[in-house]
């Protein structure tokens, strides 16, 4: 088992524990982006780079990732979802430097990330990079495409957009609700260098993040599974919302612990 796989497992276990203790939903939305977040925070981001979680409903996965790399403590995580916490269901403003913007309303993260990338590339000329994780449902939002148009037009090569393409959104499959496919062609048409990959495969993530093309913003279409790692949650829309019962918590933990 590689180092990154061990971290991903640690994040998933922590995430399930957090949601169980908090009796909170959005579990499967977090599970779909664990490898992406682990790779970004462990391998890709430097202290000068910036990460924006545009899919704010994946916050618990981000909190667990920041915990796994030592940015958040056990004490911080113990407050998750509790009265008085800074770890709300969606990221709070001005709480932690590793989470620069409050998100949760979809379609906000990419314009902000694009602004940071433009400022760094055109004004500060500092080589700092920006990554933004967007959900596939979020590609319904017009503001996401406004930002894509701008980033492509200005050739923001310091911007990497990752689409957590798990195929499910709030009340149905993305295919049925408002089909955003073909995502590859769409992002290419907006001026991005696009790669399609298995968003749970670290070697593919590594290869995609390292083979970015100069002169263009990058878009990684990460094909993922909502609820990845917990069999009864995987690809089930209901787990966008449901909290865990004791029985299902134990089942989930047992499954995760047995995974190599």
């Amino acid at each position: 088992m590689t180092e990154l796989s061990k971290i991903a497992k640690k994040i998933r276990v922590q995430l399930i524990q957090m949601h169980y203790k908090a009796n909170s939903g959005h579990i499967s939305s977090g599970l779909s982006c664990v490898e992406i977040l682990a790779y970004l925070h462990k391998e890709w981001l430097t202290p000068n780079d910036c990460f924006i979680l545009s899919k704010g409903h994946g916050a618990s996965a981000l909190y667990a990732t920041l915990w796994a790399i030592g940015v958040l403590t056990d004490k911080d995580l113990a407050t998750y979802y509790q009265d008085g916490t800074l770890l709300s269901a969606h990221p709070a403003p001005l709480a932690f430097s590793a989470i620069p913007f409050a998100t949760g309303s979809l379609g906000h993260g990419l314009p902000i990330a694009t602004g940071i990338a433009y400022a760094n590339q055109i004004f500060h000329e500092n080589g700092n990079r920006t990554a933004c994780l967007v959900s596939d449902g979020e590609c319904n939002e017009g503001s996401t495409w406004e930002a894509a148009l701008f980033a492509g037009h200005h050739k923001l090569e310091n911007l990497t957009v990752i689409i957590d393409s798990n195929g499910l959104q709030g009340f149905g499959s993305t295919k049925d609700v408002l089909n955003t496919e073909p995502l590859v062609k769409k992002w290419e048409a907006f001026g991005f260098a696009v790669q399609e990959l298995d968003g749970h495969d670290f070697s593919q993530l590594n290869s995609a993040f390292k083979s970015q093309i100069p002169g263009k913003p990058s878009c990684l279409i990460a094909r993922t599974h909502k609820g990845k790692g917990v069999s009864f949650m995987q690809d089930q829309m209901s787990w966008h919302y449901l909290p865990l019962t004791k029985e299902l918590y134990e089942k989930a933990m047992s499954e995760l612990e047995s995974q190599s």
Partner: protein
Amino acid sequence: MRIEFTQALHHILENDPRSVFISGDLGFKAFEKIQEAFGKRFLNAGVAEQNMVGLGAGFSYTGLRPWLYSIVPFITLRCLEQIRNDICLHNLPVHIVGNGGGYTYGIMGGTHHALEDLGILKGLPNMTLFFPCENNQVEAHVQNIQRTLSPTYLRLAISGFQSSMPVLEENPETLTRHYNRGSKITLIGMGHALQLLIPTLEILKSSGVNPDLFGISKFPFQLEKDLALTESVRKTGKVLVVEEHYKTGGMGESLQASLEMAVPFKILAPYYFRGQRYGSPRFHLGQCRMDPENIAMQILEFIKSENEASHHET
């Protein structure tokens, strides 16, 4: 006010290398000189206001001071959630500038009118609103905004009744102006609606009424610093506010709630009605009984009815 704003902005860009001007594809015969003089510090972000506000938040996060410009409804209502979430919740010094307050865009139609902007923005956390009374106040507003290290909104407008009169006194911090000393009533113009009160003042004087006249142009109010204004209210015991903004949610309501004294208080404001017609800013004001003659008449009626009421009480 756009010319004065452009001049003031030019000055800001000259003196502060962090400042950047972002336009939502507007500026023909207005921003060419800025574009030429400041190169990449003038950015046309295209017709995409939601993205523009997000960009502003991102710029600000890296230490830049962005000024975002468009027509009022496009840069306020269209992207309201971006203003709240991306800018205000993070208390970022992003400076929104809307051109066309009130009925400025007159014949352009209802989509271009701005009669709700201040009401909608005033409740946002960390937001300060600036709405100059006259062209000659814009420079002071822009300088005041530059010193404000938090979100701001500047409302530029053209009055249907362009005129100006000497200012007796202006508070450099609150930007409240005192225009005329009088005794019968405290008359307040909110932002550029003040200009409408200048011809009104002449009508009132010829009717034997000399009001105390003020222009308010910044929110939140700091009435504890506007001593001439609060003293006037205490002295006259009557307040009448004129604003080019719907009454509901407007600055008049906020002022009434902010005054510590319970005094007779009247607000004259435009209103929407089915069947309204379109024309110049002056036409629109007249359609809502907001021409100087009608305003003067309503002021005189207000003074008379309040005097009668107080006479009955005694």
